[in-house]
């Protein structure tokens, strides 16, 4: 009978201490939460703990908690909170630290790199828009079309030396803006 009830109807039953409704809700939702936690913590045992804690909280707070809006939104907020809480506990455990370092930390660094790249792309494009027209054209050909200074010189019918000079000035202007090594990553072939 419980399979036909909506999430919120199940919650209403749970509020009245209906253990069967609670189990039905668990069977309905557990896998999504488990896979979410496992994808982040890279460990099935820890993902199990997280799912257990999320549902434990629902049961413990059944009388006091009023969920407004979508129940699955609420669950995903809860699982995110539990993942972070669990990660903090893992970081305090001597043996689990090795797991975090090997399997979770790389994902964080990747996320950080992506964020940073996006941020810098934004800053750089603002800066490029403020460059003189010729320099802007040369810089865009170099960075966006990946042309060599020689090819740029041919395309724009100017000397290669001018291209190199303009690129060098452009890079110099960008330098204070972003970390040097990253600029060099973006514009390796100047």
């Amino acid at each position, binding site marked *: 009978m419980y399979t036909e009830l909506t999430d919120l109807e199940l919650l209403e039953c749970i509020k009245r201490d209906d253990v069967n409704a609670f189990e039905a809700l668990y069977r309905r939702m*557990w896998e999504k939460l*488990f896979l979410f936690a496992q994808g982040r913590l890279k460990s099935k045992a820890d993902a199990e703990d997280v799912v257990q804690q999320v*549902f434990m909280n629902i049961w413990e707070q059944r009388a006091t908690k009023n969920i407004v809006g979508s129940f699955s939104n609420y669950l995903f907020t809860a699982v995110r909170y539990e993942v*972070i809480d669990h990660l903090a506990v893992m970081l305090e455990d001597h043996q689990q630290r090795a797991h975090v370092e090997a399997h979770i930390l790389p*994902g964080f660094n990747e996320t950080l*790199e992506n964020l*940073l790249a996006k941020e810098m792309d934004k800053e750089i494009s603002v800066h490029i828009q403020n460059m003189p027209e010729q320099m802007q054209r040369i810089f865009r050909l170099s960075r966006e079309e990946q042309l060599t200074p020689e090819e740029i010189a041919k395309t724009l019918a100017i000397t290669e030396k001018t291209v190199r000079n303009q690129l060098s000035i452009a890079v110099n202007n960008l330098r204070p803006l972003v970390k040097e090594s990253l600029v060099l990553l973006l514009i390796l072939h100047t």
Partner: protein
Amino acid sequence: MDLHELQQIIHKYQQGTATPTETQLVEAWLLQTTNDESAWSSPTERAATEDRILTKLRAGIGIAAPRRRSIWQHRLLRIAAMFLLCAGAGYAGYQYRYHLLDYVDPIERLTVSTGMYDIKQVILADSTVITLAPQSSLTYPRKYRGQSREVALHGKGYFNVNRHPGQPFWVHTKSIDVQVLGTSFVVNDQPQDSTAGVSVLTGKVNVRHEQLLLGVLTANKAVSFNKTNGTSRITEIDAAGEMRWVDKHLVFETTALSEVLKALAEQYNIVFQSSTNIEKGKVFTGEFTAKDSLTDILDIITISTGLKYQLLNNHTIKIYR
């Protein structure tokens, strides 16, 4: 970013004290799309997991669910973790990571500048000693992080770099970049000069403009880089001769006496009682080392300009004919 830093960020995120960048990082990590989101080795494994969690849940509900840990224990661990962070265990990740970390958690950078006539010494965290010529400035990190040591120089400086294997030392100026391991050399890049140069006293030095290698210099070699046309030239030099200014403290070269007194007043925190009438038309040329006392300096200056001086009190000096 290493484990300690991750721990710090997670901790701050939980406490609600994370910076906007740190919060953004944690949330982006939570919302990332992971590719192993449907990884059951078999349907049996899935069913077994489902039942195992449910069993634990039932047990938890039955015995009124204890929390995983008591709060004070948790907090003690956190304090311990903070001490660990403060102790700052070194982590040798690769250099790129440190740039990312510098973005999230920048290390404070300090700047030392010299005036028109004085020379200053700066000692860095790695015991590298830098002597700054007049009208120069050096910007350096309070401490080093990662595999490279980097400073920025405006003007002229003598570097005596402490050797740290695997941790190159970089000097960046407006037009050149100098990379060394452990040597002594002078870098000179003044905004008013059309050339920038590096002279080497000992060891081996790589000099670059942008990514272009201008030369690998050894002892008694110098490179001069022309800022207007981008050409460079390597020459033989008497490096010891070029470093003579290094152990000096104050250097004047046909400097107006009024300027000399102003520099001394600044350097020694004193006041001169004098007049433009007395100072007018007088110039002074001379160098002083840190060992010269103020009275030595005043003796030399007044004798060579035909004047006299008198100490009125600890910080006031009268200059007269």
